[in-house]
């Protein structure tokens, strides 16, 4: 039988990987749209995307819990489509994580697309490249570092999530019991030794991930590489 902490780790990695993937798929067009948008409503959409940065996770979790319940439309539609309840499920914590980590993926991408601007895309169009061709062969290679940053931040933030998951996922082993919840359980049970193992693992994991991002985006390193060429 798998150790409950290992199970929590696997659930966490599965949730964070799936969330990051969904965020890249949904966040890229949203960031692109925001970077190109000239409408006065842009600030409203930007504020909605950034809301999880300032909103207490429990507030988001509370409203999602209500929305996911079988008494309300999103929860009902989910139940009709899948035959299963949405609240307190793995799917619920993935949806919650996608919303909660959205700004960590959308904002770096939006900034990168804004910095890139239109000049190179216009040059691509004049050489016969259509929109998707331009995205995959000009935008993606040039903004690669921002995609890595966005994915890493989205992943790391999802791994460290607690409030939203506790509200909408509860504490079901193998389903919604992630590392942060398991840590909380150990502390509640005064099992500080196991709490330490989880806490230090999360600390080191986050540290390594962030250091890798900063190393990748280090302008000094880029300059040195250019000089070597």
């Amino acid at each position, binding site marked *: 039988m798998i150790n409950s902490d290992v199970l929590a780790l696997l659930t966490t990695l599965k949730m964070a990987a799936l969330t990051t993937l969904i965020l890249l798929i949904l966040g890229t067009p949203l960031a692109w749209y925001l970077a190109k948008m000239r409408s006065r409503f842009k600030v409203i959409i930007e504020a909605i995307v950034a809301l999880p940065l300032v909103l207490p996770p429990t507030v988001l979790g509370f409203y999602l819990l209500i929305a996911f319940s079988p008494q309300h439309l999103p929860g009902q539609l989910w139940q009709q489509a899948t035959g299963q309840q949405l609240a307190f499920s793995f799917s619920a914590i993935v949806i919650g994580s996608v919303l909660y980590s959205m700004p960590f993926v959308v904002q770096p991408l939006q900034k990168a697309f804004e910095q890139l601007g239109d*000049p190179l895309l216009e040059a691509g169009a*004049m050489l*016969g490249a259509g929109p998707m061709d331009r995205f995959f062969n000009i935008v993606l290679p040039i903004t690669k570092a921002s995609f890595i940053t966005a994915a890493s931040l989205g992943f790391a933030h999802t791994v460290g999530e607690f409030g939203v998951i506790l509200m909408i996922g509860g504490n079901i082993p193998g389903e919604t019991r992630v590392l942060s919840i398991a840590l909380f359980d150990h502390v509640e049970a005064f099992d500080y030794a196991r709490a330490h193992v989880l806490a230090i693992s999360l600390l080191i994991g986050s540290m390594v991930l962030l250091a890798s991002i900063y190393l990748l985006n280090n302008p000094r390193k880029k300059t040195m590489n*250019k000089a070597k060429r």
Partner: protein
Amino acid sequence: MTDALLKTTYPLFLDIQLGFEQHGFEPFQLTVQQGLSLEGITGIFGHSGSGKSTLLRAIAGLEKKITGSITLNNIDLINSDSNIFIKAEQRNIGLVFQDSRLFPHLNVVDNLKFATKRCKNNRLNFDEIIKLTALDNLRHKSIHELSGGQKQRVALARAILAEPILLLLDEPLSALDRKAKASLLSLMLKVQDELQLPMFYVSHSLDELQQVCDKLLVLSQGKVIGYDAIHTMIHQLNYSDVTSDADDIIHQQTSLSLPITTLDNGQGLAILALNDVENIYLPALDESFTKETLRCFILASDISISLTEPINSSIVNHLFVKISSIDIMKNKVLITAISVKGKIEQEFFINISTFSQQRLALNINQQVYLQFKASAVRTYLY
């Protein structure tokens, strides 16, 4: 891509009936109604804000808020009445930008291959274009290692390799030094000679346009104020308000294309045949010069008038002419004179002060001598 835009018959005919309006901080309006037969290099001249780049972007398909129509050999590129808008990537029109816009993640050869991979025709030989644009030594260089002139050469080669039916050049030399400008202009002429690709060349430098263009379209404050053969149009500009707006940019001048008789007469001079009896002298040209004619210009302020033949003078050029018009412009006078000795009439433009005009008591139809030094015969390229 519209198949008709892949293979087209030359000469191209471009019909432009467009309106463009920009509101906000810097309101701007462009209205162009002009048919253009595109052969060789057509210049678009105008000062900043005249609308020349907007016109070029409209033809390229990069300006979407256009009303009216642009048709190329009877194919609608845009027609706002019929809701037709062919996207830039489907027009098969090339554009070389002011700032080269090379892809920074690709080296020189990969930037060029970006064009060939998307080219539907593939009639041009990649290596021959590299040779033509003198890029052989730069093939594997990073874009960051190139000078401004080299970047523009890569941008020109990349645009050519996409095999467009029309090439637009939006002030491609504006960021370069004089030497790099001359080198790229020569390259453009070479490319035009070898590929016979019609080009639209936008610039606010009349000197550059004079050297390479066959025809010139002049824009001022969003409107076309003239379109004619290059020398004729430059001469028309001598009388225009466009010159007085920005005297520092263009100067009244005589623009010429003359056959070369002698590259170096052994006494430091080259000789051009003005007509069957008169010559124009200028500083000796390099013996490697291969062209049969030379484009040159003489500033109106560099020519003076004498009532008698100035035979006892170090000034080598003196021509017998008849005054055809006298225009007083502020505190100076623009004299237009026509050569009378040869079979071909050539107009010359001379600036003198009102003081000199009154002292010499010049009149229309009066026959006088023009004199100018060899070094006053200027050529931007050579």
